């Protein structure tokens, strides 16, 4: 088969994150393309967590998709949470020792789910136990149960390694990793490489895990390799195995970032962690400098310190998510007023308020565009996948300095926490653009000199022989406070006009919006990580004779109004569909604001879970063929 999909579940803290990394690495070693995403609670230990992995022999999968080939549960809760996701042929791996457990005996399970499970099973006449759920999956959905004796397997491990049982238990999560790997035909050595990557220098852990893989492989018997994948097609020599957080960090390093400030918050903190782990830029023994990663006392301090650093000429950024961004809003306005180049990497999660802090969504577009009192220019760019995220991170740093303004780089949890095999990005054509610098400025220097146009030559704090002033008050060319109405009229206009300059320089077509043409039966309009699901759904529907296109919005400020309107008008109005992971269809409403064009059909999702390819394509069909105008999606546990 070309692709295999599997879902691995277990309690938070039991190693699901490790599983994602180990499996992704192991498949990558073999040259497969892997996409893996993770769902978890805002909890450190005990609540249910799972990963969804797609391994493909030809190309990188782009989004979660229903219908796993394998569902593997570490515990009873995993079975109860996911058994309804099985389809014809799905192999359901579970611990035979848990067969009799009922939802009532699982305190970590949420009330609502417990109730639904009971209802589903009792409606079908099945007992409310793991056994019952597995049988339901088999009888009703066509799944193939694969009970494994976890206790026996771990007993075997403790025997082989000569370690006590409680120590063997620590390797439990490897049972399901190994089951998946074994079923799909991975070799022991591939997995071993995954463990070596994950636990560098910890031989005992690697050995233990490898031993357990062997035990499980034995236990699989005939089934081993039964879901074997096709040989991968011409893989390149190397892959980065990276999350969305990771690629942004890598992009920032290429883009010359030298100070990253942050206050811990999900799902942004891992980016700073990645940077800190690589703070010394050592390449083959020679040092290219260092990135100062600075944990502040709050997000107000994070953005303020980033701005302070930016004024000295250091490329500076901060990364956060909604609650933190809210606190940055005031200082963002200061940066706008003072033409300070600063980048805020903004990871969307489920809002409002603390919301669903470890889940995803696309609810923060308004926040990125409009938060903050007063009017000032900012650039807002949203990334749709790992590759875009990498290049956008570089661009954001360039634009910030070229136009001397804050740039907000929008991502979301779906992207941040999904791990892929990424071809090492080409840096051909990637440039560092520091904008207009006043390298030879002297005592007559005026920081906000507008005589040459809205963009003033920029000197840096600490630059020899130059002195300058900054203030959040309206100011004159020197940066001193001025309340004069004529100065105000011109200064405010000059600041705002920088956006016009940016608009004239950054192409609408291809850079600010991208049309993926596939036919005129329908047009999806989306942004951010809708991209993956949209493109795959379009492909899926092509198989069913529906030919659609996707308009991917990339830069929201300056908005690509002309091009977007042109594209929209080239489709039948009732075939244009907004797709967004929010309630309000924010991007669609922004299209109306900027072009007057109202997208009247929409597919929305706000459960905190990503949009799946299947549910999206079914919704498209209901709109295009069924006349529906709004579809609300809710797939995923």
């Amino acid at each position, binding site marked *: 088969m070309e692709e295999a999909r599997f879902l691995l579940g277990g309690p938070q803290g039991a190693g699901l994150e490790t599983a994602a990394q180990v499996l992704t690495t192991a498949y990558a070693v073999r040259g497969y393309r892997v996409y893996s995403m993770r769902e978890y609670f805002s909890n450190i230990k005990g609540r249910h967590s799972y990963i969804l992995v797609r391994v493909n022999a030809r190309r990188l999968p782009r989004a979660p998709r229903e219908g796993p080939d394998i569902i593997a549960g570490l515990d009873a809760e995993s079975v109860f949470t996911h058994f309804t996701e099985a389809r014809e042929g799905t192999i359901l791996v579970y611990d035979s020792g848990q067969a009799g457990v009922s939802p009532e005996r699982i305190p970590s399970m949420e009330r609502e789910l417990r109730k639904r499970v009971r209802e589903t099973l009792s409606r079908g006449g099945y007992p409310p136990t793991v056994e019952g759920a597995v049988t339901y999956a088999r009888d009703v959905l066509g799944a193939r149960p694969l009970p494994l004796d976890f206790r026996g397997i771990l007993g075997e491990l403790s025997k082989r390694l000569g370690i006590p049982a409680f120590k063997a238990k620590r390797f439990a999560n490897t049972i399901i990793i190994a089951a998946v790997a074994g079923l799909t035909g991975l070799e022991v050595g591939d997995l071993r490489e995954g463990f070596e990557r994950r636990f560098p220098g910890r031989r005992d852990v690697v050995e233990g895990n490898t031993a357990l893989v062997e035990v499980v492989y034995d236990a699989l018997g005939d089934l081993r390799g039964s879901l074997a994948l096709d040989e991968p097609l011409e893989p390149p020599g190397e892959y980065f195995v990276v999350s969305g957080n990771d690629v942004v960090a890598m992009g920032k390093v290429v883009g010359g970032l030298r100070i990253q400030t942050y206050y811990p918050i999900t799902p942004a903190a891992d980016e700073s962690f990645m940077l800190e782990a*690589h703070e010394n830029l050592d390449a083959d023994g020679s040092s290219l*400098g260092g990135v100062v990663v600075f944990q502040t006392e709050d997000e107000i301090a994070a953005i*303020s310190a980033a701005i302070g*650093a930016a004024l000295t000429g250091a490329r500076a950024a901060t990364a956060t998510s909604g609650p933190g961004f809210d606190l940055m809003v005031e200082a963002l306005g200061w940066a706008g007023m003072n033409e300070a180049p600063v980048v805020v990497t903004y990871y969307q999660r489920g809002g409002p308020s603390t919301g669903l802090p470890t889940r995803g969504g696309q609810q923060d577009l308004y926040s990125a565009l409009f938060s903050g009192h007063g009017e000032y220019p900012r650039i807002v760019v949203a990334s749709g996948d790992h590759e875009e995220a990498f290049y956008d991170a570089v661009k954001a740093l360039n634009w910030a300095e070229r136009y001397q303004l804050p740039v907000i780089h929008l991502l979301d949890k779906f992207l941040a926490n999904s791990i892929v095999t990424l071809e090492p990005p080409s840096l051909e054509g990637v440039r560092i653009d520091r904008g207009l610098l006043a390298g030879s400025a002297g005592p007559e220097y005026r920081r906000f000199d507008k005589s040459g146009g809205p963009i003033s030559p920029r000197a840096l704090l600490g630059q020899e022989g130059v*002195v300058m002033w900054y203030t959040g008050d309206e100011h004159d060319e020197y940066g001193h406070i001025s309340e004069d109405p004529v100065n105000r009229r011109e200064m405010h206009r000059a600041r705002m006009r920088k956006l016009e300059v940016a608009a004239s320089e950054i192409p609408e077509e291809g850079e600010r919006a991208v049309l993926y043409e596939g036919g005129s039966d329908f047009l999806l309009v989306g942004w951010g990580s809708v991209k993956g699901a949209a493109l795959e759904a379009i492909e899926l529907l092509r198989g069913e004779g529906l030919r659609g296109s996707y308009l991917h919005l990339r830069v929201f400020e300056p908005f690509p109004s002309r091009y977007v309107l042109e594209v929209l008008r080239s489709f039948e109005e009732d075939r244009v569909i907004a797709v967004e992971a929010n309630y309000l269809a924010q991007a669609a409403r922004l299209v109306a604001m900027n072009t007057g064009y109202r997208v009247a059909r929409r597919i929305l999702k706000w459960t905190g879970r990503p949009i799946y390819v299947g549910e999206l394509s079914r919704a498209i069909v209901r709109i295009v063929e069924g006349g529906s105008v709004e579809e609300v999606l809710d797939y995923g546990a």
Partner: protein
Amino acid sequence: MGLRLDYKTDLWVDWCPGCGNFGILTAMQKALAELGLKPWEVVIVSGIGCSGKTPHFIYANGVHTLHGRAIPFATGVKLARPDLTVIVDGGDGDLLGIGAGHFVALGRRNLDITVIIHDNQVYGLTKGQASPTLPAGVKTKALPKPNLQDAVNPLALALSSGYTFVARAFAMDVEHLKEIIKAAVKHRGSALIDVLQPCVTYNDLYTTPWYRKRVYKLEDEGWDPVVRDPSERPVKLARAIEKAQEWGDRIPVGIFYQDPTRDTLEDRIASRIPSYRSLPPALQRIDSNGTPIVGERELKAIFRDRLIRVKKHH
């Protein structure tokens, strides 16, 4: 306007005549001149308030930030250019009210910044409301009713937060204040100077004459603020905090505490990033002629722990 070394700008200083801020301004200008610093090596960072305007009146780099945020802005400047002299000017509302969290955080870090509080017990620029240093029950001019909230002691707060240089001065004794500013700037680590600053317009209780009668100098009484060995810290700290409570008929000014034995944040960063002092963030090259210093090869080298080599023909 040519480069000037007397640290004066030609702007009109728009404080009320008689305001204590004039004393602080003069003391700063003199201190900087006497320290022999070049104007471009100095960055004055302020918050919002009457005090917040200070940088505009000083011929050196000036960053007039947001209400309460001078310390974090200054932190960013200093981290990126640890070789620059960074001074924060803020109001009592600015640093101890809205900015109190940052005030505490700076103490924890011992970053080499000097913080000057323009302590006038009121919110000057918003027309005289009570600030966090105004005691409960008193009623300054602009309050409709006596103050409901009590005062915080800036020195005690700084000492508890970890500042390694803590002093108080009187705005109207320019010479003494100037010397304290010089000592604070020279000190390696976070320094706090609480300046008693009469506000002639809104504070009719703590006036220049009121202070003149009460202020005395610690050094005149042989006070020894210096920690010479880390083991002395708890006792010297406790004594300084006790001394800081003295207020009323006699008000001590001078250096309450100075601990040069602690390492600074910059020291700690340098121990992790060896090039930090010689090539701080703002001075590193990031490109050569527009080409990123970190190219494809370097990217793979830096992030080699994330790079997987595909096994061929297995």
